[in-house]
């Protein structure tokens, strides 16, 4: 499957799209990247005069690359208008700060995809290859809830 096709199917847009590129996708997992542009709005307030990427945004980035992109791949690229996506749980650890203009790589492995629930184990690395964030994420990608 064309990796760009997966990104085109994502139900997000600016300023809440946190996927730039997918490097690989298969039955067992995905790898993708995102660069946190310095003009992203939340940097104005997190923190005052000291921009650091919020943990919730790192979590969202992990979910969009690691879970939603993988889910679209597993559904054979068929994200249709009646497909429901819901983020249902995350158990995260934040290991290092991520600053504006940093490029991160998310590597996600499928734990299971059954009855519409996709559960993944994912890590996020910075350009130096250091783990900045890791966790277990789950969501529903299904025709109905």
């Amino acid at each position, binding site marked *: 499957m064309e990796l760009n096709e997966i990104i085109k199917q994502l139900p997000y847009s600016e300023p809440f799209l946190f996927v730039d590129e997918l490097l690989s996708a298969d039955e067992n997992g995905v790898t993708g990247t995102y660069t946190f542009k310095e003009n992203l709005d939340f940097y104005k307030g997190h923190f005052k005069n000291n921009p650091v990427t919020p943990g919730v945004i790192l979590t969202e980035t992990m979910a969009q690359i690691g879970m939603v992109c993988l889910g679209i791949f597993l559904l054979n690229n068929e994200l249709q208008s009646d497909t429901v996506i*819901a983020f*249902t*749980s995350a158990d995260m650890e934040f290991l290092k700060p991520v600053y504006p203009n940093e490029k991160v790589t998310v590597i996600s492995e499928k734990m*299971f995809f*059954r*009855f*519409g*629930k996709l559960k993944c184990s994912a890590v996020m690395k910075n350009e130096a290859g250091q783990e900045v964030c890791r966790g277990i994420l*789950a*969501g*529903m990608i*299904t025709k109905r*809830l």
Partner: protein
Amino acid sequence: MDRKELTEKLKEIIKPYAANTEAHENLTEETDFIKDLNINSANLVDIVLDIEEKFDVVIDNADMERMLDVKTAIEIIETKLAAK
């Protein structure tokens, strides 16, 4: 395994997912997972996967769709166990 034993085992599986602990304490065969225990569809999947593991059975999509209350869950597990 008799029905009472099976119900107790199922009750133990459900416990970590039941948002309504009082309804879980008072669980009967009539208890509905979603309406009574406030379990969402994502946790319902976890319960079904735990049932598969604990009872060593395989639940298919059709069973999953019906498994919305304790009574139906027990009946499905009993059928699966009998078929083994």
